[in-house]
């Protein structure tokens, strides 16, 4: 009997890539897609890497495909925006070895900056989009995705969502396919996207999509589950599971491929049911197309375009009843916070003391926007902090941004921040940029990057020196300061705010959660000396709490002994001492 395992959706996708005979995979970490590459890296037969950004990752995978092997790129939904430049043109070139781009959407915005729907991008780029609904399908349909990619000479988007990526369900494992490398042949009309070739390829793209549209109605990944014909559902992805839970006897057209749609099959399905609901999270991608064919279906009249769906949401619409027995109690919110010993807290505490504003970026340090630190004013997308600050300087002048800095993490800086810094040098900005170098890609769970000296597979490699990189592109003042040296940070910030020299301050200290560190110290509060002023509470460390009498207590199990609080106690009531 084949082995059965309970697997995370992302684990199953990696397994599918392994079984499909993938030879090359490139990715940039991004919740909820990160674990795909981490699981795939455990298979020695597959070359896997972290690329500095998603555009690079997709181009690497495309190059591997052109050369004749099966290749994969993985990213989160907003990562596909970064990779959209190659995406739209790889749609034209097509593939040689199969090419699948796994893109993880985040309905409900668990860990993202927006809620965009990748199916829309698949449509506009004329790329097939395949969507699984549980871990078993995540593995099985990935193999189908490679078959479609090669059969139709097209990249394929494999779309998942947070719920699929981070749910576990049972998977029956298979063996790795032996996929022989394809022969590469020079073909300028196919692989060189200059106008004369691209005009021809656009015709190929349309013909390919027409052929796949026609075939889609008979592809087994689009499945008609016959049931009660009073009410039918057209659905895909995890939303399918909610339909089965809420309406187990209804007829269901379960789409495994959501672009292009199987028009003939959908027309037949709608005709067979008295009433049809399109149940899809986020945008009405299926619904609008079905309605444009003149079919009467319901969708967003009943359900929101926001957040995750659920079975209860559907049950409520079908029955008008709510399953809840008890009313929710009022409970103070518990938002995510920077960890005890986090070096970002130290940097933000200095910025707060100096009453500075920060153009922020994507990472744990986005949490510097919330109370009590409240330092970050803007967060848009990867690398944007530096360019936003440059834009402010050009709009309002040097004086306006003296009280501003850009804050960006090490991995984010290498992702796209460095481009913005080149622009600052080239176009003569005088500004302060802080690289919060915690030696890892923190928020996504500690992935290596080009400045850590390790590859995804754990091999030693060259570590890019961020300070030398900044100097090489022409930044006149580059300072490396320990993130916990608040006095030196303050002095450097005051100096760079006071003169007109483009300054990069690299605030260095490893992420407190990075493995292999020891924390020999602990901070202890003396209730006798505590004056109940609350200064230490305003740095927002979760290890420090107020007791009933107003004095503070430091949880020794949580404290990492960074000593930041000691520096903020004017009365000497907090002492950092050996554990």
């Amino acid at each position, binding site marked *: 009997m084949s082995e059965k395992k*309970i697997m*995370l959706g992302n684990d199953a996708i990696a397994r599918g890539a392994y079984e499909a005979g993938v030879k090359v995979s490139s990715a940039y970490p991004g*919740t*909820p897609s*990160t*674990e795909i590459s981490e699981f795939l890296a455990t298979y020695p037969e597959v070359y896997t890497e972290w690329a500095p950004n998603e555009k690079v990752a997709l181009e690497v995978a495309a190059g591997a495909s052109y050369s004749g092997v099966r290749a994969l790129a993985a990213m989160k939904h907003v990562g596909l925006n970064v990779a959209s430049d190659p995406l739209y043109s790889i749609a034209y070139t097509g593939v040689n070895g199969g090419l699948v781009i796994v893109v993880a959407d985040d309905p409900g915005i*668990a*860990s993202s900056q927006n809620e965009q729907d990748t199916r829309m991008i698949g449509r506009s780029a004329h790329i097939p989009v395949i969507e699984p609904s*549980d871990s078993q399908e995540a593995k099985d349909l990935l193999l189908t995705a490679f078959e479609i990619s090669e059969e139709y000479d097209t990249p394929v988007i494999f779309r998942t969502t947070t*719920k699929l990526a*981070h*749910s*576990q*369900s*049972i998977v029956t494992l298979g063996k790795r396919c032996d996929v022989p490398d394809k022969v590469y042949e020079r073909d300028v009309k196919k692989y060189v996207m200059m106008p004369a070739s691209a005009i021809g390829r656009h015709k190929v793209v349309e013909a390919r999509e027409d052929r796949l549209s026609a075939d889609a109605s008979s592809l087994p990944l689009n499945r008609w589950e016959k049931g009660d014909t009073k009410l039918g559902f057209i659905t895909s992805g*995890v939303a399918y*599971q*909610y339909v*089965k*839970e809420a309406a187990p006897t209804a007829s269901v057209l379960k789409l495994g491929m959501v672009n292009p749609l199987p028009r003939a099959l959908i027309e037949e399905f709608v005709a067979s049911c008295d009433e049809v609901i399109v149940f899809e999270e986020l945008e009405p991608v299926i619904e609008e197309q079905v309605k444009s064919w003149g079919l009467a279906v319901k969708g967003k009249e009943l359900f929101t375009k926001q957040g995750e769906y*659920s*079975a*209860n949401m559907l049950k409520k619409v079908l029955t008008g009843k*709510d*399953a*809840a*027995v*008890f*009313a*929710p*109690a*009022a*409970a*103070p*919110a*518990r*938002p*995510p*916070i*920077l*960890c005890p010993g986090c070096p970002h807290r130290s940097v933000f505490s200095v910025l707060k003391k100096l009453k500075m504003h920060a153009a922020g970026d994507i990472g*744990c340090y*986005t*949490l510097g926007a*919330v*109370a*009590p630190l409240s330092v970050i004013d803007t967060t848009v997308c990867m690398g944007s902090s530096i360019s936003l600050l440059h834009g402010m300087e050009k709009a309002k002048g040097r004086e306006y941004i003296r009280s501003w800095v850009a804050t960006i993490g090490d991995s984010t800086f290498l992702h796209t921040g460095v481009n913005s810094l080149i622009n600052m040098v080239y176009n003569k900005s005088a500004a302060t940029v802080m690289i919060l170098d915690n030696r890892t890609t923190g*928020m*996504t*769970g500690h992935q290596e990057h080009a400045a850590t000296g390790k590859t995804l597979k754990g091999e030693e490699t060259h570590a890019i020196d961020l300070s030398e990189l900044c100097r090489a592109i022409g930044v006149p003042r580059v300072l490396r300061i320990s993130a916990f040296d608040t006095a030196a940070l303050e002095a450097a910030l005051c100096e760079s705010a006071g003169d007109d020299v483009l300054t990069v301050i690299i605030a260095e200290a490893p992420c407190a959660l990075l493995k292999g560190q020891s924390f020999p110290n602990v901070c202890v509060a003396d209730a006798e000396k505590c004056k109940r002023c*609350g200064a230490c*509470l*305003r740095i*927002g460390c*979760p290890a*420090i*709490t*107020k007791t009933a009498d107003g004095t503070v207590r430091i949880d020794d*199990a949580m404290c990492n002994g960074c000593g930041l609080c000691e520096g903020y106690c004017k009365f000497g009531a907090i002492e950092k001492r050996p554990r």
Partner: protein
Amino acid sequence: MNIMVVGVGGQGTLLTSRIIGRTALAQGFDVKLSEVHGMAQRGGSVVTFVRYGERVYEPVVEEGEVDVLIAFERLEALRYAHFLKKDGTLIVNDCRIEPMTVVIGAAEYPEGILEALSAEHTVRTVDGSAVARSLGNSRVLNSVVLGLAAREIGFEKDAWLSVLRETVPPKTVAVNEAAFNAGYGA
């Protein structure tokens, strides 16, 4: 069977739900788990689900459907108690972790949580941290809580222990087993 595990990011709720899921899988059930990764984990309120039965579709459990709610912290028990079925059971690790909203004075930590919850639900509590500390390893508190929950969920004790042994780091098998037993007998 619908199980919900709630707590504060970093408390080990994810590992607990994975052990429950694997134990159910070993009994031959269809199993689904839903986890939380990424930014939401950073010291925030964390929720995971385990469902098992003949056939499971939805990976999450919704309000009014939870059989056993395992809360690793009192305020989180209060926050999610309304997910319980009418006759569901609430397992609470009796500890208090103040959210930042309370620390900075923007909100108050509610008093009398356990009393209020006991008025409406069947509540079983354990001071997992105290038990774990008495065993010499404060990090095994989730095995203490798991032990208490295991009694409510059912399955043979050995079924739990064999999964526990395979899941925790090899060096900590003995202390995790002792912690589970302490919770199971609590």
